[in-house]
């Protein structure tokens, strides 16, 4: 269970987030949707406490995250960064094993190896397991990073565009793995993602972020052509295919200067 209570954040003087408030329950995957620069990554970093929000607090299972030690936080919260450097001479297995670090006191135990083996197999990374990170493709590296976060066995997962480098098959596979982990282990997951259809298919909840404020938040019902048009400035058609909702982009709209003006008004 993750509660974000009115987080505001500014880079120097440039306000990026304003009073962002929402909850993600255990076993729930929430997608953050919003255009480039909307503040998705910033929000995730504030929750991770990499950035210090100007105001507001983050509660994990009702406990204030700002009072936790880094290591304590790492045991409860996993993070998949938008960019991973990946130029280390570290094998894939070792990289995934890093996810066990918050749980390891001194040496690597049988359980740690077991957990790593499990996620490596779940994400079909076996064949790569002794390959060095700097010898992987972008998508392979992304899977390794996701595997590391899963190996952390956290209660909260923050994913920053985890599928941006993946091919069609891997997008589905990785999202299925993430979703299964989320529902089976009762993880509260928050994911920034650009592919609205992928989000529609796998998430329980949606958060539309525009100019650092929540524009709309809720189940699939918030994905309407009106909302998408407001947030992305793109005219879309929302269709249902079988039981599944999909959006079809039609054309871009006149770009609204709304973000900056709104920000000035505040």
């Amino acid at each position, binding site marked *: 269970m993750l509660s974000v209570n009115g987080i505001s954040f500014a880079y120097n003087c440039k306000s990026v987030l304003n009073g962002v408030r929402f909850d993600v329950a255990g076993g729930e995957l929430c997608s953050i949707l919003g255009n480039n620069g909307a503040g998705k990554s910033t929000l995730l*970093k504030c929750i*991770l*406490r*990499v950035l210090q929000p100007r105001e507001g607090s983050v509660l994990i299972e009702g406990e204030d995250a700002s009072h936790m030690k*880094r*290591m*304590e*936080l*790492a*045991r409860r*919260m*996993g*993070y998949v*960064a938008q*960019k*991973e*450097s*990946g130029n*280390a*001479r*570290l*094998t894939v*297995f*070792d*990289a995934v094993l*890093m*996810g066990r*670090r*918050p749980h*390891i006191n001194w040496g690597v135990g049988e359980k740690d*190896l077991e957990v790593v*083996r499990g996620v*490596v*197999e779940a994400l079909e990374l*076996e*064949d790569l*397991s*002794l390959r*060095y990170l700097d010898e992987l493709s972008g998508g392979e590296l992304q899977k390794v*990073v996701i595997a590391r976060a899963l190996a*952390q066995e956290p209660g909260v997962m*923050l994913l920053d565009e985890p599928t941006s480098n993946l091919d069609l098959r891997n997008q589905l596979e990785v999202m299925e793995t993430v979703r299964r982990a989320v529902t089976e282990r009762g993880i509260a997951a928050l994911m920034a993602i650009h592919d609205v259809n992928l989000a529609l298919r796998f998430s329980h909840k949606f958060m539309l972020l525009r100019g650092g404020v929540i524009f709309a938040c809720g189940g699939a019902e918030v994905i309407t052509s009106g909302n998408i048009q407001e947030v992305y400035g793109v005219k879309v058609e929302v269709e249902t295919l079988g039981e599944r909702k999909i959006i079809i982009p039609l054309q871009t709209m006149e770009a609204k200067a709304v973000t900056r003006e709104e920000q000035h008004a505040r």
Partner: protein
Amino acid sequence: MRAGRRRDWCELEVDGQVYEAVENVGDGYRAYTRRKVLVIAAVIIAAVVLAIISMALGSAGISPLEVIKALLGQADERTTQIVINIRLVRVLAAVVAGIGLSLAGCVMQAVLLNPLASDYTLGVSQGAAFGAAVAIVATGAGSMQSSGADAVLIRNPYLVTVAAFGGAIAATLAILLLARYKGISPEAMILAGIAFGSLFSAGTVITQYFANDVQVASIVFWTFGDVGRASWRELAIMSAVTLPVTAYFVFNRWNYNALESGDDTARSLGVNVGRTRLMGMLLASLVASVAVSFLGIIAFIGLVSPHLMRRIIGDDYRFLIPGSCAMGALLLLASDTLSRTIIAPVVLPVGAITSFMGAPLFLYLLIRGYRRS
């Protein structure tokens, strides 16, 4: 391996080594880590063997067997005297300094995420040289003659050592203060280190300009590193600093691994990035400073021995830290052995020999690339 999923190859090639039919990921991984442990063990054994040979070499004509006997306290008086009181100190000083310098380079590279980091590139050595130069000039040429060269007179070796240490630490603190209070990035820290290094070098040059002939000779002589300068007392101080710091670095091995993935990810894995970087730099510089102030400048070990190990066993700091220690000890020991035997009885400056041996080896490894076909 997952049942029902066929694997059309049954070999796994790692670093030129072929592991057959790895039934599951864990076994392959174990075999792979075992190989790293073996490499490190081999380097350690080589260092021990070389240490014994090194203690046997010299004008006294002692055999390696006699060395071992002397170490076990079963040789005659004279042999024991030479081996324990002269040669063993020298060998141990080379080992401890090798470990310290190499470890310092390894950890500086880890926390600054930069392959160029070492005591030499970050201005620690230059700071020490400047401190020593100032002390030599300030105390003036005096009565105490130094071990090697005739024209060299260092009046107060302890003062020089302390001043060198002060210079080395000053260089480090300058960088760390910038990092702490101005929040400069790791790349900027490297650049600042290079800047402070040239500042100190310029300071040394100016000091030399105003010194007399004997003082200049003494300064130059001081900068030639020499592991023979250490006595038991210096060795004890060096070890007292190096060993706890080594333990600290080993304790932080996971943190250095995590830093490789970037600061944000490292934080998400529970690493206190700021503290790890600050303490890493501070302690690495401390170890290097102690070695440099007692023995003079020994270039290149700090840069080359971690990289030699990186090339052989990869960047995993769980293995790289002990590996670098072993390699640093081996390299400095080998350089010292060579420096005092190659044109015996003249003892060449070990710092020059480290570069002579290290550079070609390093270039060879760079050109050959990582171990994998």
